[in-house]
């Protein structure tokens, strides 16, 4: 794009021109080029909206048992098996107790996504706080990083299992079975996955701290809090966003792994991971019961990973514009 072209375009505009090459416009421009990220982002948005608003559109109670209509197959099985038991009332079929699969997917997805988002935000806030403080305040750097290393050397999955068996009952007693388990899983996943973020953020902050604009800010008497908020955080947003997407994916997978090992949410509380684990014995008869939640988990994580990939490319000024 030459100087000439831009001038002509600008002349054709009615309103005032935005400042050329605003950072976010560039980011969006680069991001749009990454097809995978675009598709992934739209899919994630769709899934999120679906699990949030789905129950207002699809109003069947996911817990309602209907023995007469058990083992209904999804509508699409009718394509190759005209004898299949399908019903318009249950487009994705029902399980062995006659519970509607679509309604369960919506409710289960909401739990899985909620766990993912909340755990990710928790891990991110801890990680960013530790990273920024360690990077900015020299005195705290040693102890905080030692602590991070220490947590990194803990074997996570075993301790996760121990923690779940350990705190399950007290939390259940004070918050009820579902909320208690939610707090527990979100808590353990969040608390055990902040270390990478902290390390990355710290190294970025260490490098930024020595740059001229920070020096300038400090020289005019800006308080450390303001420097961190106004100058440091916006500049480390790229690694944070990328580790956010990874964190979301990890949290969703971890929750389903815990459910698979039988230490997750209570039995009558659907999540994608639990639906998958419960259906494995009937995999050959009713493959859809495994495939649907399995695909939901995989596609969500896949789209999140693509989103992160695209964001990394878009947010990294060195790659951007290449």
């Amino acid at each position, binding site marked *: 794009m030459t100087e000439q072209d831009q001038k002509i375009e600008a002349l054709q505009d009615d309103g005032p021109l935005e400042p050329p090459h605003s950072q976010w416009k560039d980011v969006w421009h680069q991001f749009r080029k990454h097809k995978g990220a675009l598709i992934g982002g739209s899919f994630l948005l769709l899934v999120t909206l679906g699990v949030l608003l789905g129950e207002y559109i699809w109003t069947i109670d996911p817990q309602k048992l209907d023995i007469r209509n058990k083992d209904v197959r999804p509508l699409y099985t009718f394509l190759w098996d005209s004898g299949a038991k399908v019903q318009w009332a249950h487009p994705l079929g029902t399980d062995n107790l006659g519970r509607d699969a679509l309604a369960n997917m919506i409710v289960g997805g909401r739990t899985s996504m909620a766990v993912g988002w909340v755990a990710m935000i928790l891990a991110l806030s801890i990680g960013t706080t530790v990273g920024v403080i360690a990077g900015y305040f020299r005195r705290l750097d040693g102890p905080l990083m030692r602590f991070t290393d*220490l947590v990194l*050397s803990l*074997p996570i999955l*075993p301790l996760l299992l121990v923690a779940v068996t350990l705190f399950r009952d007290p939390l259940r007693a004070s918050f009820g079975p579902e909320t208690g388990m939610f707090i527990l899983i979100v808590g353990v996943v969040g608390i055990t996955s902040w270390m990478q973020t902290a390390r990355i953020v710290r190294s970025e902050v260490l490098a930024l701290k020595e740059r001229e604009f920070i020096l300038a800010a400090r020289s005019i008497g800006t308080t450390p809090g303001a420097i961190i908020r106004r100058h440091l955080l916006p500049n480390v947003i790229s690694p944070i966003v990328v580790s956010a997407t990874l964190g979301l*994916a990890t949290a969703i997978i971890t929750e389903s792994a815990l459910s698979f090992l039988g230490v997750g949410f209570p039995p009558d509380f659907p999540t994608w*991971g639990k639906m998958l684990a419960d259906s494995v014995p009937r995999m050959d008869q009713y493959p859809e019961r495994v495939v649907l939640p399995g695909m939901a988990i*995989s596609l969500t994580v*896949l789209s999140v*990973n*693509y989103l992160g990939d695209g964001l990394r490319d878009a947010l990294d000024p060195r790659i951007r514009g290449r």
Partner: protein
Amino acid sequence: MLTFTIRRLILSVPTLLFISLIIFLLLELAPGDPMAQVPLTVPPEVKAKMREALGLGEPMHIRYWKWLVQFFWIEPQVLFDNMFGTTFAEGKQRILSWQTRSPVMDMVAQRLPQTLWVVGLSYIVGILIALPIGIYSAYRQYSVFDQSGTFITMIGFSIPPFFTGPLLIMIFAVQLGWFPSVYDTTHVVNDWDSFVIQLRQMIMPVMVLALQTTAQISRFMRASMLDNLNQDYVRTARAKGLPEHIVVMVHVLRNSMIPVVTAIALGVPGIFGGAIITEVVFKVNGIGAQLLSALFANDLPSVQTLTFMIAVLIVVFNLIADVLYGVLDPRIRYD
């Protein structure tokens, strides 16, 4: 470099002690009861007696001290005895599992081979697949190969092993009958035929695990290659007329391997820790499965010992990774 290594080694001792204390306290606080698996028909008085026999009556600090002594003093002696036929540890109390009433370390020794065979091999297979994919994807960034490579590795990231595992069993063990669905840990490899049997029973768990390793390492490789391909020295090398394959395979690859090698080293403790879910799905009964069953049976000495051993490995391999980094990259100097 030597001073750095020694200093890190000394520093890791308090770290490890602290970790062992954390693990011990966590397990102490756990409300589980090792008698939970004993049937309901066994009367409570008998259960109380059994608990006492496990040494649960003693105060906490004494049990922690005992465990420390057993782990750091007696068990190394046992290892020494086994290697050189000496009798230092004879008659000394070893760490006993509550579940089997046998030394935890004996079980670890028994289970390590299959864990190393399956998880270790999958790690190697994963790396061997990942490196070429990573290199080529980076070299042809945004090409069809890169896009599909990315897609496949993303799938490896995104599909949990408890989904792929049963799926593979369903297809290859039940429908086609090619591979066994249960791993035979008593199988001994002594000739070609038995080796083929061993291969057949390993192939499914190895593939499930290798998919994940491939996904991680190839992403790493690609990112690292991309970083280096834009560097000035690459332009210089091309400018002076070096053939493209030398530029990529020698100059760029060598520099890109530095972070990848350390990442590979960091993944090694995971091999010894076993792969809990995959081992459970394929009944490999390695370290991961041992840890899980110990957890469910509230076999605290086993859980404590196993988690701590994994922690030791993580600390050691972190150190190795750091040292490797310094050795491979002359720009980095530890002072």
